[in-house]
């Protein structure tokens, strides 16, 4: 694993995110930045997913259940060469394939339309079940948000994963501690993690979601698991731009020109 290369990709991904949200003057930067390193690792190091096999049954699947982080998904698609970089400028525009929340019908690389929170994990379970029925050795990755776990359906889905022993599933929690209205502990308080997820029958692993070495180690711990996997990725909302980090205001607000330039300056240093 070439960590420098992955860091470079993640940085470029964050530049893509910033450009998309700035151009559209709407979109979700904070949660896209926090998920970026994990997604780069999955798409460039771990998953069997490429321009050549994206529509083959044998491909690994990535489902972005926290659909509002769509800009990160489109960035990865651009980095993978699935879409042209120029298309990123259509983000959130009418008739664009890059809808505000990912649309499977608009863009086939999007495994499932998400955005109404809590539903992507159930979908991921369905995919994992289907793959098992067909005895296809592919893995399903589902990224959920820590605000998203307020949704009851997440807990319904966790029971389904466990009941069906979906060892071909890895759920990743983007554990950045912030949701729209504030800190997760102050809104609905999903504590204690990781105990709750362990009690649901998962192989729970905690990682630093911004350290590629640690990310790799965490995912490697899922390789021989006989349980469904749950990775708690400790992340920082807005990671990569100092004035956006850990700030509740950067959930769904676009930067103005001055903020954009300041952020770009920080990201372009590398």
């Amino acid at each position, binding site marked *: 694993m070439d960590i420098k290369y992955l860091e470079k990709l993640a940085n470029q991904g964050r530049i893509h995110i910033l450009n998309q949200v700035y151009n559209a003057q709407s979109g979700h930067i904070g949660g896209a930045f926090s998920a970026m390193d994990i997604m780069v690792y999955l798409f460039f190091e771990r998953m069997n997913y490429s321009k050549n096999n994206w529509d083959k049954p044998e491909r690994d699947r990535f489902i972005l259940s926290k659909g509002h982080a769509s800009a990160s998904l489109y960035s990865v698609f651009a980095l993978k060469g699935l879409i042209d970089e120029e298309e990123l400028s259509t983000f959130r525009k009418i008739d664009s394939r890059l809808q505000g929340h990912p649309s499977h*019908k608009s863009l086939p690389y999007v495994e499932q339309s998400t955005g109404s929170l809590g539903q992507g994990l159930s979908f991921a379970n*369905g995919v994992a079940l289907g793959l098992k029925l067909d005895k296809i050795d592919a893995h399903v990755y589902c990224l959920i948000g820590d605000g998203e776990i307020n949704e009851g359906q997440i807990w319904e889905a966790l029971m389904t994963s466990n009941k069906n022993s979906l060892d071909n599933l890895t759920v990743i929690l983007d554990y950045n501690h912030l949701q729209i209205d504030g800190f997760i502990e102050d809104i609905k308080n999903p504590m204690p993690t990781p105990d709750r997820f362990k009690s649901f029958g998962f192989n729970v692993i905690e990682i630093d979601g911004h350290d590629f070495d640690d990310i790799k180690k965490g995912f490697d711990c899922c390789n021989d698991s006989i349980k469904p996997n749950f990775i708690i990725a400790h992340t920082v909302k807005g990671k990569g731009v100092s004035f956006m980090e850990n700030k509740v205001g950067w959930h769904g607000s676009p930067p103005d020109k001055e903020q954009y330039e300041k952020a770009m300056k920080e990201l372009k240093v590398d």
Partner: protein
Amino acid sequence: MTEKFSLRGHYGKLLTEAGRKYPNIVVLDADLAKSTKTEQFKKEFPGRFFDMGVAEADMMATAAGLASTGKNVFCSTFAIFGSGRAWDQVRNSIGYPGWPVKIIVTHGGISLGEDGASHQANEDIALMKVIPGMTVVVPSDIVMLEGLFNEIIDFDSYIYVRLPRIKLPVIHSRDTKFEIGKGIELKEGKDITIIASGSMVHKAYNTLRRFKSLDIDAGLIDMFTVKPLDRELLTRIAARTKGILVCEEHQMHGGLADS
């Protein structure tokens, strides 16, 4: 007394037969397999049956995931839960991305009876009808259900089929050709035409003699596909009948009458 037959019982039988023929059919239920009659499929194909528990929202989105791997997915629960409890999932996880999940619900309408109003789905047609691209079918007897079943199996989009709890007499003859989207004219009428769906078709049928005794020439259409509506048939009927009466087990807003 006219013999009556259970549509949900027949659904369980047809589904199991289809399971023997098509290995890619999988069935999901939300802890109601005994009532929706998917239990028969469960017994014969336990590996292709998933009891999702009392979790309709989870069931619908899981169904979408299974459909994405090429499975022919049938989802069953009561009409009230399939349409209401899981509406967001049917809209966003099935309809919006376009996964061809077959939602076959039972216990639709007020005729569910004794369980009370909490369980009587009189809004489900409205809820499903407004989902873009959704097909809504309300069969009126077991002959129709059987006649439509192959089309339902092969249906390449998402569909909502509403069955009642109660048994219903047979209205249609065995040689009737059923096609989703095409209403069936059971009787022509110059003075008034009743357009009915589901359990109301046989009720309406029984009134035809009464109309005749009053010297009213009444017709009857079984409009079992509420969406897409058979506009061509409606246009023809409207041209030759003086009045139209709609009979359905649903509130007027959003139902067949409102189509």
